[in-house]
């Protein structure tokens, strides 16, 4: 995972298999970075993600809740077609936007 902070937006870029083990390793780092930067907006970029399951959805929902407490917004970026199908099942796009492209590293 990589991240960058530009003009109030904190970007996270994920790579490879975002499975239960990977999420459990990245979670605390993401929580801490959000607390540190207190961004107005967070963008989670899934372009490099080859696998994601319900653990990934749980992680995104938890960051949404973390950000809502500081009145900040969460946006998902560049889900693959198959990953989008999976996220769609949870109804997650009713509470957050899905964007294509956007700012790269």
């Amino acid at each position: 995972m990589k991240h960058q902070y530009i003009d109030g937006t904190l970007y996270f870029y994920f790579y490879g298999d975002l499975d239960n083990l990977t999420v459990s390793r990245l979670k605390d780092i993401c929580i801490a970075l959000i607390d540190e930067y207190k961004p107005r907006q967070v963008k989670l970029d899934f372009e490099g993600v080859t696998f994601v399951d319900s653990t990934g959805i749980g992680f995104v929902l938890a960051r949404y809740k973390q950000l809502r407490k500081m009145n900040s917004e969460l946006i998902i970026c560049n889900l693959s077609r198959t990953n989008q199908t999976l996220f769609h099942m949870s109804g997650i796009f009713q509470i957050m936007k899905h964007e294509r492209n956007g700012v790269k590293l």
Partner: protein
Amino acid sequence: MNNMTLTFPSRLENEAFARTSAVAFLMPLNPSVDEIMEIKTIIAEAVVNAMIHGYEQNQEGIITLKLEYDDQRTIHILVEDEGCGIADIDQAMQPLFTTKEHLERSGMGMTIMDTFADEFHITSGIGKGTKLEMTKKLHGTHESTQQ
């Protein structure tokens, strides 16, 4: 008819092993890219449920994964644990229902398995464990099986 059985302890790193082994076993059926993704996800959801809910993260619990396929390219998937069992299966099946929100679980695992599998059946007993039985028929490319 072909089959394989894996047993492994409930350690998080074994989830990737389980889903990639399952897909490797099914390669002779030449599944499509979407089918591979769906099968990987089914196995991941089932195995993570056994680890986090069935065994409540006790790494000594044993999980069994059994796969079987036939000439019609129908795959039978069984994932079994001897963990705590599910108190209320109907509730567990509800999208977004989870007993472990503090662990950032989404409550989507069962819905995802139910959607990606053609048949989905749970047997569970409190203190006895949980058995998931699923079938999935492959429809994608299968030229290699006809050679």
